[in-house]
């Protein structure tokens, strides 16, 4: 049962929240914005198209989209989205993180496969920023494991300990993971998802040479990645109930929409940083997580 429902949610909903973000940004800018389901239309359109391959490219370019989508879907199976995760075991947080890393590995290689400077640039930035954001991500995991005493995503988000609190630790962690979310999904202060200037792009730069079904798969993958990291961030403040109930689905819709609106708002009010500033911000994020660890350890009695 959990298998079915979780797979269904994971497969179908992610593009919707991208639509919510776009809508929020549009309303901030005083526009009407695209319909909420625009991303589905886009995907369907892309899946109908053929593609153009570069003569420089190899099987890496052709395999990468499937790798990206399958790693993210697998990672999604470890997350307690609606009740317990379909598979969970002690240490699955690490697997979760490394599955995301595998997706990134495939994406970077696919970018380098076409032998162009633009893709190379995007790939290089993605790789470096990924390494820096991994710092904060793993430190955040340590904090969560130390607080919850479990190294499994299902165990971590079991929040017997959340409600008396909303303790500062969680807000700090939420801030940290929210920023990781923005960085990993190439959102606004780090990368501009709607830019059309090749030299400044990160994520868009990497997928410049993709088209048709492959591009559709990659965009779909990005939507899942955003969905999963949103899940991570929002579950810190307000976890999903562990036993499956119909209202968990409603809660999921509500909370994720809230997150999407928050991302849209942040993206509307910030400007993209100079690239040289990005590692600094990621390090700042690391320091905040470090502080969260210390607060978690020393602020226990209060």
């Amino acid at each position, binding site marked *: 049962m959990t298998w079915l429902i979780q797979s269904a949610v994971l497969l179908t909903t992610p593009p919707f929240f991208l639509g919510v973000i776009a809508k929020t940004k549009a309303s901030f800018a005083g526009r009407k914005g695209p319909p909420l389901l625009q991303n589905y239309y886009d995907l369907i359109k892309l899946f109908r198209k053929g593609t153009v391959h570069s003569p420089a490219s190899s099987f890496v370019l052709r395999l990468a989209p499937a790798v990206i989508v399958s790693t993210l879907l697998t990672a999604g199976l470890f997350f307690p989205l609606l009740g317990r995760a379909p598979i969970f075991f002690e240490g699955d947080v690490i697997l979760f993180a490394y599955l995301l890393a595998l997706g990134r590995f495939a994406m970077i290689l696919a970018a380098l496969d076409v032998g162009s400077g633009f893709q190379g640039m995007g790939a290089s930035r993605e790789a470096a920023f990924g390494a820096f954001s991994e710092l904060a991500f793993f430190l955040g995991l340590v904090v969560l494991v130390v607080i919850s005493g479990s190294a499994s995503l299902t165990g971590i988000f079991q929040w017997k300990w959340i409600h008396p609190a909303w303790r500062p630790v969680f807000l*700090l962690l939420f801030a940290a993971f929210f920023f990781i979310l923005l960085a990993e999904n190439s959102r606004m202060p780090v990368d501009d998802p709607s830019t059309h200037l090749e030299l400044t792009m990160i994520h868009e730069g990497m997928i410049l040479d993709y088209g048709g079904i492959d591009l559709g798969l990659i965009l779909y993958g990005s939507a899942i990645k955003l969905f999963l990291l949103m899940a991570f961030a929002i579950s810190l403040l307000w976890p999903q109930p562990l036993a499956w109930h119909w209202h968990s689905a409603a809660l999921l819709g509500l909370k994720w929409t809230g997150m999407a609106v928050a991302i849209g708002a942040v993206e509307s009010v910030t400007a993209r940083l100079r690239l040289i500033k990005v590692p*600094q911000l990621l390090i*700042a994020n690391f*320091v905040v997580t470090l*502080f969260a660890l*210390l607060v978690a350890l*020393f*602020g226990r009695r*209060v």
Partner: protein
Amino acid sequence: MDWLLVGVVLTAFVILGSSRLDSCIRMVALQGVLLSILPPMVRGSLLDWHGLFLAAASLAIKTVAIPVLLARSLKQAKIKREVEPTVSLHYSLLAGGAIVVIAFSGFKLLPVPTGPFPTLLIPAALTVVFIGFFLLISRFKAITQVIGFLVLENGVFLFGMTLIRDFPLTVEMGVLLDLWVGVFVMGIMIHHIHRTFDHIDTKAMASLKDAE
């Protein structure tokens, strides 16, 4: 209460990592607001005149007077609004991380007073004091020096919270007065350095040594 302490440390981090002087000043002001809320809370009662008075005084000085003064001198001095640290901001932030680890793991070695204050108070105070020191060491501009000094003093103020039950009001008022005078003197000096040298780099202060 933890919220406030976490906020104070976070503002210190922001000051450490931001490259613009005006945002530094704004953060110091914010830190002042957070600090002013603390005394009544530590005293345990919102209607306690000692705490309230301290809150009002520190709000007036730390949040209003000094930042306004700094902002004015920033405007008058017409300097480049960048911090220009000697240590790059990346490493400043990493140093901040090291400081917070040292402060949190080392505070148990100190003979600290015990009392009904949150466990985070002393490590947070230590962190803020150390970050203040680091700012003083690693920045050259006079305004950033003042900011570092303020952060340092805010840390001391946090330490003072551990004793707020036992100490008479006059001590804290003295500290606040001290701060006020210190910043005032620095403000005058910024003015003078600016008039004399056309910039406000503290490296030029060596020639004004006798003024302090």
